[in-house]
């Protein structure tokens, strides 16, 4: 019990440190631009008037010393007060972000389930017959999947299903006259608009997830208890589903948490290609118009979501694997805990460098 408490305390300390780091780096990004941030806004954004500039000077407390500015900025962030957007409507940044979140979340969650539903069977089947025809075929597909830029695939699909064989809408979230439709027609309309984007999200994570599942499954299949199970004469089905797969699924929990930044990054491209009003498109528009408070708000939010994803994965792993609950104390107290160990093997993909299995996580393809 004390071990668990210690582990939780260590984890909280880690979160505090990382959160502090996130705010420092974000704050540093603001000051990256030459001159005052307000200069940048007013010269590059013609929409910002002298009044806006004055207001900004005040909001950012630019007459204060830098550590005071930082303190004020963090305090406002903590209250979800990201300031107001620089674009024409001048609405609070948080409101603009909040109304965009459901779509991006929704698409990601749907595609996450689709990814798991497809990737787990592929990974299990490839591992069960390592080197077999299916394994070889899926390896080829995985390599091509890793190299496929999602925006290119998007263009090809838009052409195929929007122009050559026009069965799907290729832009926006709803058709004209959406408001007049009944509930089921509305749902159908939404599904048609989201089919291609969700497919692209899924495809983007599929290669990494199935490869990861395969590696994990291979690892488990080498264990003695699998040999025992087979020696007992259990049918293959029982060995795979009861003995092997349940254990092989554990690391997938971690990879799910680690794929958050990749999914957030990927939403920029997919949402701007298909003109979908989600967080990614909002961020892209903010970058293009240099809507500075909006950029900072999204950046911090993205990092915090990633942090939350890591924590959830960590907690999920602990819940799912009794070995960690019982023995994780020692390792956990050190610093990052279980996630540290698990992510060491996989997070390389998050940075795009990949050193695990062929780019172990979906995040390797982030932004591509």
């Amino acid at each position, binding site marked *: 019990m004390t071990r668990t408490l210690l582990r939780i305390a260590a984890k909280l300390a880690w979160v505090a440190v990382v959160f502090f780091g996130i705010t420092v780096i974000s704050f540093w990004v603001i000051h990256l631009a030459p001159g005052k941030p307000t200069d940048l806004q007013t010269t590059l954004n013609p929409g910002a008037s002298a009044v806006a500039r004055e207001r900004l000077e005040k909001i950012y407390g630019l007459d204060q010393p830098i550590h005071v500015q930082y303190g004020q900025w963090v305090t406002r962030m903590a209250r979800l007060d990201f300031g107001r957007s620089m674009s024409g409507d001048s609405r609070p940044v948080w409101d603009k972000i909040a109304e965009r979140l459901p779509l991006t979340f929704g698409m990601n969650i749907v595609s996450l389930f689709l990814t798991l539903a497809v990737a787990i069977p592929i990974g299990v089947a490839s591992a069960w017959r390592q080197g077999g025809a299916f394994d070889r075929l899926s390896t080829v597909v995985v390599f091509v999947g890793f190299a496929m830029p999602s925006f290119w695939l998007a263009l090809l699909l838009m052409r195929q299903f929007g122009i050559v064989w026009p069965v799907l809408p290729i832009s926006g979230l709803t058709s004209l006259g959406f408001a007049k439709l009944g509930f089921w027609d509305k749902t159908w309309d939404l599904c048609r608009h989201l089919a291609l984007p969700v497919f692209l999200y899924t495809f983007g994570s599929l290669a990494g997830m199935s490869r990861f599942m395969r590696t994990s499954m291979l690892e488990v299949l080498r264990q003695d208890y699998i040999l025992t199970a087979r020696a007992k004469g259990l049918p293959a089905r029982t060995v795979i589903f009861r003995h092997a797969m349940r254990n092989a699924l554990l690391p997938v929990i971690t990879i799910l948490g680690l794929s958050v930044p990749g999914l957030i990054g990927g939403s920029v491209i997919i949402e701007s*290609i298909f003109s979908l009003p989600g967080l990614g498109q909002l961020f892209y528009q903010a970058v293009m118009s240099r809507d500075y408070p909006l950029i900072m708000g999204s950046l911090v939010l993205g990092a915090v979501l990633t942090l939350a994803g890591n924590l959830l994965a960590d907690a999920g792993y602990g819940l799912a694997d009794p070995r960690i609950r019982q023995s994780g104390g020692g390792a956990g107290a050190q610093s990052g805990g279980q996630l540290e160990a698990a992510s060491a093997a996989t997070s390389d993909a998050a940075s795009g460098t990949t050193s695990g299995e062929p780019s172990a996580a979906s995040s390797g393809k982030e932004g591509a």
Partner: protein
Amino acid sequence: MSARRRRPLAPPSWLERYGMLGLGLLLVGGMSLAALLAPWIAPFDPNAINVDALLLTPSFAHPLGTDALGRDVFSRILFGGRVSLWVGFVAVGISTGIGLALGLIAGYFGGLIDEIIMRLVDVMLCFPSFFLILAVIAFLEPSLTNIMAVIGLTSWMGVARLVRAETLSLRGRDFVLAAKVAGAGPVRIIVRHILPNALAPVLVSATLGVAGAILVESSLSFLGLGVQPPDASWGNMLMDGKEVLEIASWLSVYPGLAILLTVLGYNLLGESLRDILDPRLRR
């Protein structure tokens, strides 16, 4: 799926062992050669606008057609390849340099230094890197130098972790102790004894990193925040292609194919290097 029919780990055939390496080398070599020799093999000036040849379909004169400004797509792909490879190499050079330095320091000295560096890695990994890159590019100008620097500065964490782990395991080895006893200072031990032994996985990760950097650069250019027109890059060619998707499909096919093949080549090369350099990981 009967267990009896399941083959034990069959020894890889010749094709399996060298096919991946061969294909990777072929793709990487071919693309690099094409990019290097672009000024000599490109049939047209990549930026020359020709109003008499707008959106021509692929033909003998223009093997991959022309774009909306009458520029030769084949020539632009060749020159775009120069940009992609250059960005890939420089960005990976930056990230590998930072990752190596921080990883070696963290792993060798341990303690507080290690703690600080590793927490920095954790923090950097929390940013969706594409968001961070876009945010920085929004504040700076989207120039080639900035893109390379930003990609490099946001992708060193994997290398740092890798090198740190490697250093930790090498630090206690006998040859390091021997060097210490012989009176070698930390710098000498790190540079002469640890670094050479930690290079293999770094090489693998750098090769795969080039693929990643090329994907990020082309995504940025596709969004209009990377290589700026009129200069060609595979990403901004696809951006142009999107505008005329309905009438000129070749514009959105070939540049993407170039990205796919190049990235595939580097991934294959990286994976084969891993197999060759580290037989323990061979499955």
